[in-house]
């Protein structure tokens, strides 16, 4: 018990379902208490907005909100990561804001100036927990990587089919069960076995999917795309309209595939861009073209307000979609977005896609 007290309690920002693998990793490699961030609610964003600069992008506000809630629940070690755009400076600014609020904590930033230095992270872990063992760390890191891959893979299947489930809620119920079991594994074989088992189970879920369903691709700024609360549950809304949804951005992509994929995107979109434009802007232009070529019915581009890379990408995406005659709609979300306005535009988008099908 005494040791427990010495070690700090860890929390980290919330995003989508990824708190589960993050918690899995940290709780296995460190002896500290992990305070898993709660699901984002309107209180989270209220808290985050209150202490954020007004014109900072929304993910800053969300993550600050979750860190604040973590501190309230007794955390005194905060872990943040980031890079690519303004996001790369979040950690420093958030640390300062929280310090100014009078909280006492240690702040660890996994990515400094766009670089992840393995040695630095090792020392960081040793500082958090002197008993940290590097081999154990690598072992669980590999399992976690695999877990994220499997989660993202299953999510991909869900997005394509959840709009057509016969029994409402069957996909999400199974997903919840799967995530729960994922978090209990302790070796890669077991994880692989579970993945195979659940993949089969998902395929067995009864769906009523006609051949000519509407297909929409979602692209945009990464946090808004991945955290359902921040995009007003856009994917759920599309599912209720019986639309097949494809989304590219997920954590596995960002961490392990982006560096390869981006070269391909740049090559494919030579006509439109020459250089990368920060964060996922160039990726999204490439994806827009890919969706056009794959004959998707429409594209939805979402971002948080004031997201600079995506703002630069938008006119180019418009041009791509114009060239291929695929409709695109842009949504900007922040803490003051009216949900009704989004619904109206989304409904109209849906009607338009249906009408175009008749052409």
């Amino acid at each position, binding site marked *: 018990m005494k040791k427990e007290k010495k070690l700090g309690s860890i929390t980290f920002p919330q995003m989508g379902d990824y708190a589960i693998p993050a918690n899995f990793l940290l709780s296995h490699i460190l002896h500290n208490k992990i305070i898993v961030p709660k699901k984002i*609610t*309107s*209180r*989270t964003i209220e808290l985050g907005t209150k202490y954020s600069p007004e014109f900072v992008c929304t993910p800053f506000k969300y993550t600050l909100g979750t860190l604040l809630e973590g501190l309230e629940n007794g955390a005194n070690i905060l872990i943040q990561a980031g890079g690519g755009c303004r996001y790369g400076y979040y950690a420093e600014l958030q640390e300062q804001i929280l310090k100014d609020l009078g909280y006492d904590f240690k702040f660890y930033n996994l990515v400094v100036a766009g670089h992840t230095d393995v040695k630095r992270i090792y020392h960081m872990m040793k500082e958090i927990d002197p008993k940290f063992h590097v081999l154990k760390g690598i072992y669980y890191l590999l399992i976690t990587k695999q877990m994220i891959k499997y989660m993202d893979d299953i999510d991909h299947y869900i997005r394509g089919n959840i709009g057509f489930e016969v029994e409402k809620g069957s996909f999400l119920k199974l997903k919840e069960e799967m995530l729960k079991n994922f978090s209990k594994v302790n070796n890669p074989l077991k994880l692989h076995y579970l993945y195979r088992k659940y993949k089969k189970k998902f395929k067995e879920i009864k769906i009523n999917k006609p051949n000519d369903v509407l297909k929409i691709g979602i692209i945009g700024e990464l946090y808004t795309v991945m955290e359902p609360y921040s995009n007003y*549950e856009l994917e759920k809304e599309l599912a209720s309209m019986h639309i097949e949804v494809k989304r590219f951005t997920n954590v596995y992509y960002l961490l392990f595939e982006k560096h390869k994929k981006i070269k391909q995107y740049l090559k494919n979109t030579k006509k439109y861009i020459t250089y990368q434009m920060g964060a996922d802007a160039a990726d999204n232009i490439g994806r827009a073209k890919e969706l056009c070529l794959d004959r998707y019915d429409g594209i939805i581009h979402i971002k948080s307000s004031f997201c600079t890379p995506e703002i630069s990408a938008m*006119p180019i995406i*418009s041009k791509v979609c114009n060239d291929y005659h695929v*409709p695109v709609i842009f949504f*900007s979300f922040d803490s003051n977005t009216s949900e*009704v*306005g989004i619904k*109206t*535009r989304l*409904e*109209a988008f849906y*009607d*338009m896609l249906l*009408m*175009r099908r*008749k*052409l």
Partner: protein
Amino acid sequence: MRKGYLGIDIGSISTKGVILDEENNILESLYIWTEGNPIKAVKRLLKELKEQLDEDVEIYGIGTTGSARKLIGLMVDANIVKNEITAHAVGTTHFYPNVKTILEIGGQDSKIILLNDSIITDYAMNTLCAAGTGAFLSSQAKRLGVEINDFGMLALKSRNPVKIAARCTVFAESDLIHKAQVGYPKEDIIAGLCRSVVLNYLNNVGKGKKIEKPIIFQGGVSKNEGVVKYFREILNADVIVDSNSHLMGAIGIALLAHSHEDGKKRTLNIADISFETKGRECDKCSNHCEILRIYKDHTFIESWGSKCGKIS
């Protein structure tokens, strides 16, 4: 007996009702103010429509559109509830099948719809700012002491419209006060306002959109001759304003109600039905969803707003 189809467009400022016959001809139409109470407005609308309507017409379909479409749809037992973008497009293409661009300015919102062969190909709606909408014009009319109905005619009289910074309502208002204080004649200010509405619309809603002929202008503001004039001038093209331009949404949704007819007869007698909504903030979790409970004749029928779906 003849069959009739009712379309109701409940906007922030005005409520519109249109009854079509089986050949989609307009039998009756009505335009009243919403006055912040859509339930009351629709009750009055239906009562007056019923009085106007021939007795042998029976309603076999009701459609609702506009910002209060969902609530009113429940109240009148609509067979179709559709967003205003689709409704406007359907209504307009019924009369002008080859229309390419629809400009629409209503009370609180404005939109642009691009079409090809009666199919919507692109659209946009104002997002953040209300500058360049009917509500802005009517509040400025009040400030200048002019009846909103005379606004357009006065604008036409101006020879020298003043320039008004129209980026946002607040800026436009302070610029307008300034122009009035330095002694510009009223009609020049009014003309300047009409011009600024057009510029604001084209710079915001119409940004990046290819405006092709034939162009149709509708919504309440299309009744303002001044705004119409400046649209024609700035776009350098003919802009058609239909005599029913303020009713297009209601006509569109009536047409949809007709094509989605379900065989059920509907009543216009809703004046005596009690219909109310009660709002409360849920305290079951920190989401604090705003739960709206809807009661028809004091019995609970539906609730909206729960994010988790467990609370009603």
